[in-house]
């Protein structure tokens, strides 16, 4: 070892300075990552899997194929946004966007990609979905359920963030395929699109469902303006079961020939 280097390393004062420096650097890193307290994420949506599933095996008529195609194409123009602070989040459609040439189709595609506005309170463990159907407002309150994700070591970059893959087995969701999420541990909040909240050790930047894939296109952390979630008040709420029951009435009407 060169004399000058051994002189530095074995000097007591120098050792003390190196130790202090390393401790300070570690503290700064921890403080900085703990300070991601709020943010905003914009998600794009793809419904190509919806289209492919709809037309597979050639079972769709040309007109039905066209309907699936129009739906998937309109979804490409959807943009959803997630605002969050350390305890709460709101997930909703971005307002004022032109999605397709048909207002009816816009409303349907919005419904298919997010039922409405999701308010999440991680601290209280509750979620509120505010949605509309035929001019009537529905407020569905539920408890956040712990989802049994399998965390993998598979990783990929989404924007500036290193994300890890997590898999939710289809037996947990009732869907016909597994759900895949890519979450960023660097953003240590367990929020994500729609009702996939409360279970992963990082913000979900990509969520793949059988019918739609949500991918973060932009992430803004710790904006200057404080993120305040205005939870709706003075509202009548219902349970998920009650909401499902209301939807079943619509289905019954459809089955009866509308």
């Amino acid at each position: 070892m060169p004399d000058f280097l051994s002189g530095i390393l074995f000097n007591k004062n120098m050792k003390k300075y190196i130790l202090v420096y390393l401790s300070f650097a570690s503290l700064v890193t921890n403080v900085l990552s703990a300070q991601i307290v709020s943010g905003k994420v914009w998600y794009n949506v793809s419904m190509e899997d919806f289209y492919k599933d709809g037309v597979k095996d050639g079972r769709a008529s040309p007109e039905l194929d066209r309907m699936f195609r129009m739906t998937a194409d309109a979804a490409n123009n959807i943009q959803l946004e997630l605002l969050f602070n350390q305890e709460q989040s709101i997930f909703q459609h971005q307002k004022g966007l032109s999605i397709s040439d048909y207002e009816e189709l816009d409303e349907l595609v919005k419904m298919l990609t997010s039922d409405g506005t999701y308010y999440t309170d991680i601290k209280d463990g509750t979620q509120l979905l505010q949605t509309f159907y035929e001019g009537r407002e529905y407020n569905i309150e539920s408890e956040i359920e712990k989802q049994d994700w399998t965390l993998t070591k598979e990783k990929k970059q989404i924007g500036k963030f290193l994300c890890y893959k997590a898999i939710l087995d289809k037996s947990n969701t009732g869907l016909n395929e597994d759900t895949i999420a890519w979450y960023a541990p660097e953003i240590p909040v367990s929020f994500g699109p729609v009702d996939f909240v409360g279970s992963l050790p990082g913000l979900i930047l990509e969520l793949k469902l059988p019918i739609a894939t949500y991918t973060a296109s932009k992430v803004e952390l710790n904006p200057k303006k404080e993120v305040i979630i205005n939870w709706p008040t003075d509202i009548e709420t219902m349970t998920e079961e009650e909401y499902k029951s209301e939807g079943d009435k619509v289905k019954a009407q459809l089955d009866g020939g509308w």
Partner: protein
Amino acid sequence: MKKRIFLLSTVFAIGFTSSSLNAATPEMPVDCEDLAFDYADYIYDKYNDGFKAGKAFTTALALCEAAMN
């Protein structure tokens, strides 16, 4: 010469007959209600949500009828 006349007549006869058949058989119109029900059934099958199925039905019906007019 007689054979040539016969062949030409046959060709014209077949051509005229098939064009008459085409004129007599109109293009099959799309049944918008059937389409709307098919689309709504698919949506319900995927989402298990009556509201989405209802919305899918009205949307498909509206778009189809708009396209037919």
